[in-house]
């Protein structure tokens, strides 16, 4: 597996690992203003393109995208860059991956920021699997939320529709989102108030002992990542990375 990774050229303290969501890519952290905000605070950052996205490899089998497999890719990314410990930020699917990475390797994650997720995935395993089966056979997939997400993602430049269907199926078919209360580190959760993907974020927060929740009034799943208040709060929460 080869991953394309964008990193800051300079910065102090622990680097910040930025994990993007479905149909996004590492450079979107720049388009949304996050890398600039981190740089202004003097922080170094690392933004991989997840498998199936950006310029990274795009396997076409759902198993390549199971949550534990992608989390392992993120751990190997830290190893390859010789980053023993980082601050971690994830949005949407990247938020789930960030929580799982923090759970699997709590000693390597100092502070965690997670946005745009609730307490369950937006697509069921059955719907995502049906989508993949149709797309892999070059048939039109059944209507529904899975097709909407996949169709949007597949229309972006450089997208591989089969890989993106496999990604949705692999993630959605992974074990349920669970056990996040075992991560002991400080955690900031954020989401727009008009983001249905983040339904249940209060319940998620209630399970995280050392956490706080920041709601962005009137913003939805796409816009919450772009509003300056979100990144400013996150950068403040992460601090200078020296402790």
């Amino acid at each position, binding site marked *: 597996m*080869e991953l394309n990774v964008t990193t*800051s050229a300079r910065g102090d303290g622990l680097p910040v690992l930025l994990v993007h969501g479905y149909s996004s890519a590492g450079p979107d952290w720049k*388009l949304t203003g996050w890398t600039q905000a981190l740089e202004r605070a003097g922080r170094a950052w690392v933004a991989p393109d997840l498998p199936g996205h950006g310029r990274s490899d795009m396997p076409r089998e759902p198993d390549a995208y199971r949550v534990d*497999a992608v989390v392992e890719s993120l751990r190997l990314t830290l190893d390859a860059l010789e980053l023993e410990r980082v601050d971690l930020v994830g949005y949407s699917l990247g938020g789930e991956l960030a929580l799982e990475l923090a759970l699997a390797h709590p000693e390597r994650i100092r502070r965690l920021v997670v946005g745009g997720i609730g307490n369950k995935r937006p697509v069921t395993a059955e719907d995502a699997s049906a989508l993949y089966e149709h797309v892999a056979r070059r048939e039109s997939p059944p209507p529904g939320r899975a097709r909407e997400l996949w169709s949007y993602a597949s229309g972006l430049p450089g997208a591989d529709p089969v890989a993106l269907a496999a990604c949705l199926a692999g993630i959605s078919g992974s074990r349920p989102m669970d056990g996040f209360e075992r991560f002991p580190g400080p955690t900031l959760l954020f989401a727009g108030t008009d983001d249905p993907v983040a339904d249940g974020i209060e319940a998620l927060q209630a399970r995280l002992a050392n956490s706080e929740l920041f709601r962005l009034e009137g913003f939805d799943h796409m816009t919450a990542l772009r509003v300056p208040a979100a990144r400013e709060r996150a950068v403040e929460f992460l601090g200078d990375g020296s402790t």
Partner: protein
Amino acid sequence: MSGVQYVFQLPDLGEGLLDAKVVEWRVAVGDEVERDGPLAEVETEKAAVELPSPVAGRVLELHAGPGETVEVGRPLVTFEVADQPGIVGAVPHEEPRERRVRLRLPDSEG
């Protein structure tokens, strides 16, 4: 101010995006800007982003009006920047702000 001209071209803003639309200029011709100071808000098909100035200098020309689309690599702003002693016609050396690396990850099964 004795200076040299520096033409700032629209940078590559991300995956496969070929152009961007100028939503709003944050500077006008004649303004002095600091390096990393806000230059313009531009919008791609994916997001709106604020472009910081790559140099400190005075704005000589804006190459697009609000609402106009600029292709990546085309001139966006011409600055007059301070001349460097002993160097004629050069522009200040810019350190890269970011790097791109390609990682080959070991097989997690092995």
